[in-house]
């Protein structure tokens, strides 16, 4: 319990510090903050006043940060600097696509990555060689390249999947997001497969597995209870890290498939220098990243009895 509270407190601390970083970043830009925010767009005096108000540019620096942070905590992310839309609404509209994409990719990493790793680790022989080679190459394939190749083969060539867009309704969305999710999950699956394989190899010859065999426990049970189960401990942290990493990877894949998710929104905002949107997305993603990492640590503590005891002391 104290472990969870301590981790939560640390997360809150990091989030406050990183939101300060996100807020203060604009002051690192050359020129006045006003010029930076407007970026040479022609704006009416009313809009300019609204922007000054949004960033409380008439107040001292720390007050500006405080105003901005409290607004963010109330869910008010201000308005887009490029087209005056409400950033919170903009984000909310884009969230489902990104969430679904990341969830699908996470499932693929778990099923494909761990599955392949277990097959390679337990079977050996040609299957093992092929999976090992595949994972050595797989991790080197950039998601955007995988996206293009998958798109040109399965969408343009075979016509099995739509080329662009996110779809409407649950199943249509899944159909639209299948290829993007595979492109996004490919490199991580390769890494997870390799680590699973190594971990299984190590556990297979571990003393407790060998002694379980020596005690007359059936091989299939030794594999399940001692080898695979225990090899999942290190694998679960790696999987967690990679699922958290999907957040950043999703920008690129969303953009490649022109999906209407947060990632595409972020890329366009950076291209258009719409800093209010960039800030909002950065804050949301850092928070999501932190929460996923925390959940992974808690999950790990829950499956490995040794972690619990150490942290409770």
């Amino acid at each position, binding site marked *: 319990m104290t472990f969870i509270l301590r981790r939560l407190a640390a997360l809150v601390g990091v989030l406050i510090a990183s939101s300060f970083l996100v807020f203060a970043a604009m002051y690192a830009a050359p020129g006045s903050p006003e010029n930076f925010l407007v970026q040479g767009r022609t704006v009416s005096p009313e809009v300019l006043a609204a922007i000054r108000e949004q960033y409380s540019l008439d107040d001292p620096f720390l007050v500006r940060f405080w105003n901005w942070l409290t607004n963010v905590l109330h869910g008010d992310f201000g308005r887009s600097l490029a087209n005056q839309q409400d950033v919170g609404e903009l984000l909310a509209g884009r969230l489902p696509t990104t969430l679904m994409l990341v969830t699908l990719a996470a499932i693929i990493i778990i099923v494909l990555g761990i599955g392949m790793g277990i097959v390679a680790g337990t079977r050996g022989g040609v299957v093992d060689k092929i999976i090992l080679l595949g994972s050595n190459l797989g991790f080197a394939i950039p998601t955007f390249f995988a996206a293009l190749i998958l798109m040109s083969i399965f969408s343009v060539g075979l016509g099995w999947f739509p080329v662009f867009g996110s779809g409407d309704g649950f199943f249509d969305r899944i159909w639209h997001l299948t290829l993007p999710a595979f492109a996004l999950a490919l490199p991580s699956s390769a890494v997870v497969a390799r680590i699973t394989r190594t971990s299984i190899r190590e556990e297979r010859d571990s*003393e407790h597995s060998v002694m379980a065999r020596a005690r007359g426990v059936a091989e299939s049970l030794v594999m399940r209870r001692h080898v695979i189960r225990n090899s999942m401990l290190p694998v679960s942290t790696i999987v967690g890290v990679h699922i958290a990493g999907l957040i950043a990877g999703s920008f690129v894949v969303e953009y490649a498939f022109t999906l209407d998710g947060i990632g595409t929104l972020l890329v366009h905002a950076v291209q258009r220098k719409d800093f209010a949107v960039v800030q909002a997305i950065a804050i949301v993603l850092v928070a999501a990243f932190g929460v996923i990492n925390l959940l992974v640590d808690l999950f790990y503590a829950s499956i490995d*009895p040794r972690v619990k005891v150490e942290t409770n002391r």
Partner: protein
Amino acid sequence: MLNIDNLSLTIGPDLQILRDVSLAVAAGEAVGLVGESGSGKSMTLRSILQIEPAGSEVTGTITFDDVDVRGLTGEALRRMRANDVSMIAQNPHAVLNPVLPVERYLIEGMHDAQGQPTKTAKIRAGELLEQVGIDAVDRVLRSYPHQLSGGMLQRVVIAGAIAGRPRLMLADEPTTALDVTTQAEVMAILDECRHELGMAMLFVTHDLDLAAAVCDRIAVMKDGEIVEIGLPEQLRDNPQHPYTRALMESRPAGLTWTPESEATS
């Protein structure tokens, strides 16, 4: 009962671990296998259960009740391991799966390996722990391996090893990894259990005195070969091989150990 004939073991092209090892253990007899680390004692034990490291090349024969145990596979091999021969390894913290509680270790041996019903196995687990001198039975059963001391855990391993009333116990330096203060206690418990059940034992150790105290006969091993076999007093009073003589001379003087002196403590 156990007959090892011309057992040789090599790993890879040129690493010879065992060379023509021949040794017999009669029913109820305790045989010590003494030598320094790397002399091949553990590998001899592991070959009996077919748990030598992958990539080992083994020749020679090992029979248990005239059955060639190296030739056993599948179900027959599993039964032999579960019912006839059990083993105690050096480091109990490595033997128990770190993420499963102690109770699961004992139940696994009795239920999954020996085929006893889970219910019986649960009851027996407690009884066995009492038998190896553990008081806080429930606490130990619920504990995870890292929460227990090496001495406590080795008792659990001994309890697991005697659960199936095997006729042969393979003990691989069972006290070496333990605290000096608990070594004698654990050894006494092991010795006591052996006598109670009338088990034969092949006892691997680097400690000649300890072997002399608990064994009927002692084989001295060096560089993968058995150089001398004899009764403890023969080896002590009239060692034939120079290596045995060196072993006798190198031990600390004045320390003699008997199971009786510790069993009550």
